[in-house]
């Protein structure tokens, strides 16, 4: 390698303009374009769609899934998966409602719900990181276990708490915005900060990119892996508390199947299931797309069964685009740099 002409000493902003790279460009804004197109389409087809109250409703309806997906993004970035978040939603909802009914003040009940989620995540994380068990299997197990736990705690019946102290968390407004939407935005700002600005975030990406290389580079891989499940658990706990507040009750069946919607949002947002690649902003957009899609389809009076068909196709399309993009990228690089 010779020293190229572009090497001028003392300058840091001399990263030369590269030729237009469609894959890279799509990586940045592709998903956003899909969202905008979808919104425009919906606004045209369904006249009520673009009304402010409808948009706020959509925002509120996606907040639970988006908060789940935010936590899950960390897990998937490390190359893991967490199927138990839907069950954690139920457990933490039950725990927070029971705490509130026992007379604890609202903030304490909320914190206990989140802590319960974090504890569930800690169990996942320790089993995966320190016992080396496969994330899919571990969280499949805890998914079932925690669902059973939520049924056990409620004796299988919903616990209705009509005077629930933290009901505003699900139903209230602040400055004209639904509170769950504000919570969701705060969660994403926090997650973005962690991933993009901190040492911790860099280590999460490193572990997902190549765990062995991360270890040899001095990253304490086991701690990082454990922590992402704890984070996913805390987020799921928060989602569970929000859902319980919205329903003003603790439902043992709450959150059933939510893990799949959350995974869909993360993947739709461009995060690779193989780990190491993806962005938190993409996850938010992915969650919004799924929310817009379901609300839009409802407004258009599309039958529920057909809605599922559409959602399924959208998810597969998104992953297919991602995979094609990856392949062309890798292939291009490989053939571009021959080795003898």
């Amino acid at each position, binding site marked *: 390698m010779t*020293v190229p002409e572009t090497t001028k000493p003392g300058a840091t902003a001399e*990263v030369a303009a590269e030729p237009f790279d469609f894959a890279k460009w799509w990586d940045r804004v592709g998903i956003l374009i899909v969202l905008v197109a979808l919104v425009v389409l919906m606004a045209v087809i369904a006249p009520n769609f673009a009304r402010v109250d409808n948009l706020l409703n959509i925002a509120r309806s996606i907040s639970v899934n988006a908060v789940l997906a935010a936590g899950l993004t960390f897990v998937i970035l490390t190359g893991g998966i967490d199927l138990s978040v839907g069950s954690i939603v139920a457990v933490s909802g039950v725990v927070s409602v029971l705490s509130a009914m026992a007379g604890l003040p609202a903030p304490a009940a909320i914190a206990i719900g989140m802590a319960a989620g974090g504890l569930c995540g800690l169990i996942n994380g320790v089993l995966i990181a320190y016992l080396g068990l496969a994330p899919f299997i571990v969280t499949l197990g805890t998914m079932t276990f925690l669902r059973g736990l939520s049924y056990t705690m409620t004796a299988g019946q919903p616990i209705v708490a009509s005077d629930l102290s933290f009901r505003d968390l699900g139903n209230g407004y602040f400055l004209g915005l639904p509170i769950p939407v504000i919570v969701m935005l705060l969660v994403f700002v926090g997650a973005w900060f962690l991933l993009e600005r*901190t*040492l*911790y975030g*860099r280590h999460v990406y490193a572990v997902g990119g190549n765990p062995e290389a991360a270890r040899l*580079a001095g990253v304490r891989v086991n701690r990082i892996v454990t922590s992402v499940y704890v984070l996913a658990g805390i987020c799921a706990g928060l989602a569970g508390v929000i859902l319980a507040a919205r329903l003003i009750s603790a439902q043992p069946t709450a959150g059933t199947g939510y893990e799949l919607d959350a995974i869909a949002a993360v993947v739709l947002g461009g995060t690779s299931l193989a780990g190491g*690649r993806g962005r938190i902003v993409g996850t938010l957009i992915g969650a919004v797309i799924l929310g817009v899609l379901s609300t839009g389809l409802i407004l258009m009076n599309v039958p529920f069964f057909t809605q599922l068909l559409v959602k399924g196709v959208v998810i597969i399309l998104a992953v297919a685009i991602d995979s094609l993009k990856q392949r062309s990228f890798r292939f291009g*690089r490989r053939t571009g740099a*021959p080795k003898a």
Partner: protein
Amino acid sequence: MSSPTASLLRLEGVSKRYGVTLALNDVYFDLRAGEVHALMGENGAGKSTLMKILAGNVERDSGRILVDGQEVEIRSPRDARAHGIAIIHQELNTVPAMTVAENLSLGAEPRTKLGTLDRRRVLREAREKLARIGATIDPRRPLGSLSIGMQQMVEIARAVSENARILVLDEPTAALSRAEAQALYALIGQMRAAGVAMVYISHRMEEVWQLADRVTVFRDGAYVGTGTMSELAPSDVVRMMVGRPVADLYHHEPRRPGAPVLDVESLSGDGIGPVSFRVHAGEVVCMAGLIGSGRTEVARLLFGADRRLSGEVRIAGRPSHPADPHAAIRDGFGFVPEDRKAQGLFLDHSVEANIAISTLRRFATAGVVRAGRARDAVLDQMRRLRLRLNALPLPVRALSGGNQQKAALARWLLRDSAVLILDEPTRGVDIGAKREIYEVIDGLASAGKAVLVISSDLPEAIGISDRLLVMRGGRIVKELRSADTNEEEVMLHATGAALQTTPAMEGANP
């Protein structure tokens, strides 16, 4: 069939371009029946491209390929097979979880009348195929339970059973023990006697002189020449490969080592050691030895990557007993692992992220990384290593092997580690990058670092170091001063044949 001296395979004026790179430029290659023909060249010379063309994985842009004097097209692996060409890759093309017999019948499984798999015939045919190459391997064993050498035998048995007449062996002994290599040499001899022609790609001079009848050398994608082994000395071939005399490749100013920085006392691990040695400030020490002699294991023990059983390690007098690499790095170690793609780098991540990863803490306040400062520091190292600065945001995958290695080195230069352990730092890099890596190593020594290099390239190990630690069977069997030794002496200690010259040694040091 052709007569023994006629060309079995012939390439004329073959070229292949990848983007702006001319990987093969009008090359010529001639293979006769029953000969072992070594193909040599530095990395980037075009050997792999030629092999891919023969395998049908890549199509040439121009030129002719002749088999038995007839012009042929090789557009797919199927075409290659039809012409009797088989490739034995470095990465084996087999299914480890399946048995040897199942692997041997893969894709052509015999069936019973009912259409189910005929297990008995699978086993019988496997025995026959293995017997044909004289391999004594139980075909019922899972392939993955065999050593790499034995797996390679299975691969060869498969090729031979498909009536391959042209066998391309790509660095077949790179991962073999000495005994396995000997068994492979014997098999190659047998196949040659049976009229199979072999293209033998290898970097090991002694092996090439032992096995090959002729050698063809490529350089930078171009044909340099073909010669008969008996008329050539290794230095001739090296000159052809490099294009100039190589004596100055390892040149460095005399070094004056200072106080001991790394002090290792009776270090042992699973099957390793105890080993004791010191590396001084400003000194380059090379661990030499055969593959499997325990060099990498010692490095991993020092670095906290594997568990130590016993031993006392000090860095500049301070004890270092790291529980993990994180602690070892804090103690002052830096480690560039042997397999940079699997263990060293994050291939899809940017050059910047790859270099900064181990030093980020220094640029972080309360866990928040000051990205601008980190970037400036990374750019400084890139300048120092002559990496092109606009590679900063590119994925490391997009870099050449040499530049990838420089990025791996830059990580520790940035960390300013007191002790650097470099495991095969020049493997898979071209000669220009090699030269630059040697300069970096020398620069580290002049800056007072202790450098421990593991190298299987003997001239390099001797040339760049001040002292050599020769390992065998997990122990250091000999310490040599680099200035007073030669490849032969190192090899004698490494093989344990200190009293007798082994056949593999002939011609190794002209």
